[in-house]
């Protein structure tokens, strides 16, 4: 005697026919849009997009109206609108990445890592100069900014999570406000507070300090979120074992949040690595290799790109600039991937 086990029914899920109908509407709208572009005044990509958009809206509306009535028809409009919105959001990012890769690969060569621009102008053949000075400058300045802003950012986060005193609310607000400080204002601040009254010279250190102002809020906010993820039981366990608050934080909370803090560092670096405006004001922007942050102009990756775009005009200059952009974008991709990987892991 064999029992027939009934297959589980899922009546709420779209059936094959439903999916087929959706695809048919989509393909039909593409076709109608093509016809509109061909036979009417609409033309170009924009015309096609609008024709497709309106055809899809109307087709979906009519179809669902016939099938299930007015409510479903209105609902389908929202669905089309949201899907279109995400599509429109994705167009620029695809276009940006495609542009940088397709234009930038021409500017990439092995000499990039060994040569600087001391003897080459931006319009010289690409192989005659590199971005060694820019890479070194960016690493020094970002590293300097990191050394200053990481302790401050983590202390701010610790104040907000561990001490959580009377000032926690205002400080949270100020950190938020600080993240909105325009980057050019950070540059002007360093100019007015340090360069004009004290050093009277542009240098890499000043660039670091300007970047610090932009980096602190990112690190503070990310670390705060990460510290909040640490379960309270861990803190209670630390205290129950007789630890003081200092021992609990140093021995339990911070080690548990290690990967979260690394994520905070990475996101902070990603935030400032492409920052241009303050460096144009305070770092001087040299063309030759300079490893001393306290004296002399220091180049940086954004400055290199900026200069190649603005002072050049030849295909070589543009290839150089897009090549630099490709390097910068690769850095951001790598940093972002690392952050995703680390924050995807289990905390603790």
């Amino acid at each position, binding site marked *: 005697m064999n029992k027939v086990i009934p297959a589980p029914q899922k009546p709420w899920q779209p059936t094959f026919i439903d999916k087929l109908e959706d695809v048919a509407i989509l393909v039909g709208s593409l076709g109608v849009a093509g016809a509109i572009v061909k036979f009417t005044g609409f033309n*170009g*990509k*924009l015309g096609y997009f609008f024709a497709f958009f309106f055809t899809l809206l109307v087709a979906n509306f009519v179809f669902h109206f016939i099938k299930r009535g007015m409510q479903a028809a209105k*609902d389908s409009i*929202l669905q089309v*609108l*949201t899907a279109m*919105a*995400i599509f*429109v*959001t994705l167009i*620029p*990012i695809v*276009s*940006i990445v495609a*542009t940088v890769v397709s234009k930038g690969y021409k500017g990439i060569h092995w000499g990039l890592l060994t040569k600087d621009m001391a003897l080459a102008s931006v319009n010289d053949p690409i192989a005659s100069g590199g971005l060694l000075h820019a890479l070194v400058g960016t690493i020094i300045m970002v590293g300097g900014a990191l050394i200053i802003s990481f302790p*401050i950012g*983590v*202390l*701010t986060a610790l104040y*907000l999570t561990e*001490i959580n005193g009377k*000032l926690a609310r*205002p400080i949270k607000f*100020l*950190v*938020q*406000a*600080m993240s*909105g*400080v*325009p980057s*050019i*204002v*950070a540059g*002007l*601040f360093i*100019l*007015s507070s340090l360069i*004009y009254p004290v050093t009277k010279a542009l240098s890499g250190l000043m660039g670091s300090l300007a970047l610090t102002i932009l980096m*602190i809020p990112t690190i503070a906010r990310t670390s705060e979120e990460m510290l909040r993820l640490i379960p309270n039981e861990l803190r209670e366990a630390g205290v129950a074992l007789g630890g*003081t*608050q*200092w*021992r609990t934080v140093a021995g339990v909370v911070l080690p548990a949040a290690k990967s979260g803090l690394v994520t905070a560092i990475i*996101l902070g670096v*990603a935030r400032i690595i*492409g920052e*241009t*405006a303050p460096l*144009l*004001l305070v770092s001087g922007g040299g063309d030759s290799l300079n490893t001393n942050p306290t004296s002399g102009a220091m180049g940086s990756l*954004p400055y290199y*790109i*900026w200069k190649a*775009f603005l002072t050049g005009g030849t295909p070589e200059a543009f290839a150089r600039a897009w090549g630099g*952009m490709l390097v*910068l974008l690769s850095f*951001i*991709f790598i940093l972002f991937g690392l952050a995703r990987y680390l924050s995807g892991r289990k905390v603790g």
Partner: protein
Amino acid sequence: MAIELKERPTPPAPRQITTKPRLSDQVFRTVVTIGGMASLVILGLIAIFLSIKGMHILVDEKFNFITESRWEVITDETGEVIEANFGIGAMLIGTMLSATIAILVGVPISVLSALYLTFYANGKLKKVLISVIDLMAAFPSLLFGFWGFFIFMSSAEYWAKLINKYLGFIPLFDVPTPIFERSPFIAGLVLAIMIIPIVTSISREIFDQTPLDRVQAAYALGATKLSMIKAVVIPYGRGGIIGGAMLGLGRAMGETVAVYTVLNVVYQVNWQVLFGAGGNVASLILLKFGEAGPYEVDALMAAGLILFLLTLIVNATADFLINRFGGKGR
């Protein structure tokens, strides 16, 4: 057999119970509190130092600094400043104009995208889309600027021409001469593209907090997705969305490099958004800084101070709205 004790041992004195933290904790708390004050100190220092350098310009020019639109420095042969007139009226209006365009274009798209991410997308697609949009939020403004100038400008110019052709009778879309390149419209669109990822992630986070019981109650009453969103999600998240939009506005107003590359900075008040002339405070600072003498630099500091205060106010409002309405419903 009892043991005779000559005298009873005195019990140890009871330990004093206190809530006073140990020395190490006192040090720890002090250090952390000092570190926590850093943001306050830095913001205060920014305001103080920009004021020290820029205040005398503001005192000289009084309200003309924010109402007039001139930028003249007349010097004699020795470089002494004879006469100077500074006014950033046109720049402030231009900043507002392009930021407003960015908000008008960017926020609806962001909110709809966030709705898609929260209520329509699921599984792998959702994860990938969220990662991509977060990645886009980390792109440097330099990239948006040059992409806008070299790739986006030609399309946007074409759109501007279309708008001008069919809607030119509205004064806002009229142009005195047919120059459509580097207009506030194009700058606004580039800014819109820059703020979309930021506003999308904030709106998405707020939509995610919508209480699930209310969502399911709406479905149980037979609501479609549209009516559920209208009845539950939007009333719940309205304040948060406005706050997110304000945050985007703050970012759009303070943006320097991207605007500098796609906007033609001109000293006149221009309300015609499609015409290739506009103003922007941050771009003005970058533009004038290279050739500025000491006196002019002070005026740029004053402009920076105004920009700083403006973004501070916008961000404060945004923060207030997000916290006030972010986690509460009707």
